[in-house]
């Protein structure tokens, strides 16, 4: 296997709303024999709220520089963190002036463009590879799954690592684990509404509802995703959406790392499957 050690960037929600994602990521990599070294004293990537690109570059130059010292590529389970890290990486790599400017702020921001930032999904499917994974998978997911990719896995094109309109990295992984993909193409990369949660929850709820509803009508047992913000919206806020829109959804939402963990035979609690807000018991019953 080509990957044995990676720098790990957990992202801010990792010890709060998305702790199950953090737990499952760590458990899966351990099971796969990939060592994760947490980026020492990492700082926030800027999320979607820091809009000034150069501020984002500066923030992430620090994270990248720390990993670079270790000589490790960074992996993160969060799509926004991935986007911010990798676009900073590309901008800094390409622009010497920018590098100098950022370095001028503080020497700890001295990043030389020697590493890459990666999303866990990319690492699983494209670096470790399906073949390798299949040799380690011990359980079958007897599940109908709606794979939800959200925004930053495949957009914008410079950082996206899959088709912007109809990505399939996660589909491939799910199929490998025995899961069945429900028809979901048009929802895969539609924004979950998360960025407007705090300021226009009406819109955000409608948008999330569209995704949940499509998954439900397609007969999905659960939605699989790969971003804590999407998780917060679709799982954390699902009850609020039900209440606001007077509907009943009850759609389990799990991180792809959790599903992979299950397929690899890792204990459900170790994967934080008891932390997902919408109950995941029915899912667990279908993993054999």
């Amino acid at each position, binding site marked *: 296997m080509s990957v044995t050690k990676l720098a790990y960037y957990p992202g801010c929600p990792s*010890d709060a709303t998305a702790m199950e994602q953090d737990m499952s990521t760590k458990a899966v990599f351990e099971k796969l024999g990939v060592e994760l070294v947490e980026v020492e004293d990492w700082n926030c990537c800027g999320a979607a709220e820091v809009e000034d690109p150069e501020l984002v570059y500066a923030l992430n130059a620090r994270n990248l520089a720390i990993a670079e010292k270790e000589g490790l590529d960074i992996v993160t389970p969060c799509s926004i963190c991935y986007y911010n890290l990798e676009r900073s990486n590309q901008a800094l790599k390409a622009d010497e002036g920018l590098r100098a400017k950022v370095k001028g702020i503080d020497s700890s921001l001295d990043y030389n463009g020697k590493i890459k930032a990666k999303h866990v999904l990319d690492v699983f499917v494209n670096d470790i590879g399906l073949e390798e994974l299949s040799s380690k998978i011990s359980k079958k997911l007897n599940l109908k799954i709606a794979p939800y990719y959200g925004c930053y896995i495949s957009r914008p094109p410079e950082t996206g690592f899959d088709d912007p309109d109809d990505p399939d990295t996660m589909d491939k992984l799910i199929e490998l684990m025995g899961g069945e993909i429900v028809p979901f193409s048009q929802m895969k990369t539609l*924004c979950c509404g998360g960025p407007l949660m705090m300021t226009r929850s009406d819109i955000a709820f409608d948008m999330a509802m569209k995704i949940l509803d499509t998954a439900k009508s397609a007969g999905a047992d659960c939605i699989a995703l790969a971003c804590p913000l999407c998780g917060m919206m679709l799982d954390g806020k699902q009850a609020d959406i039900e209440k606001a829109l007077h509907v009943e959804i009850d759609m389990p939402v799990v991180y792809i790392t959790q599903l992979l963990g299950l397929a690899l035979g890792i204990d459900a609690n170790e994967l934080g499957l008891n932390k997902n807000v919408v109950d995941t018991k029915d899912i667990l019953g279908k993993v054999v």
Partner: protein
Amino acid sequence: MIKTWELDPNFKEEIMNERGGEHLTACFQCSTCTLGCPIIDYVPTYNPRKIIQMSLLGMRKEVLSNPDLWVCLICQTCTARCPQDVRISDLLGAIRRIADKEAEAGKIKIESSRPIFDKAFQHQLAKYGRLYDMGLAKEYYPKREGSFFKGMMAMMNDYKDFGMRMFKKGKMGPKAMFPEKVKDLAVMKKIFEEMGEK
């Protein structure tokens, strides 16, 4: 009726000088951005293409005070599809930052709580290096509502069920009451001082 001589012909340069706004003038008004934008299903007036055309013409005031600027999801759909590489997502960000400065200077009024939220968010980063949810909420709600008390009420309203849910799942324990801090806070401060909004 748009009288071009009353507009600001330099507005386009102003935007293009802002980070992210560089590609403004490449736009050829094709509608790709608007038609693929998920927001148009919810906000009928929303039209990034039109914001661009108005910016090009120099309709500075109308653009900067347009509340629609603040409903963009930064979802990158438009950026991914724009045939002219206008990078609308970043471009709108640049316009929002100009609008924000204007609002700070008291020249316009922004009818959206989004800048308050974004700033509150950034303040957490500047202070702690990481997101501190409580701190964010404590700053955002009172500012949005115009008073501490109203803010707290609004926060309670938004969070009472959600918070409980999180709490039950062990995601909002006592730990979340305190900020997770980056050790090297000095550098955070420097970053925001050098690069952040002044």
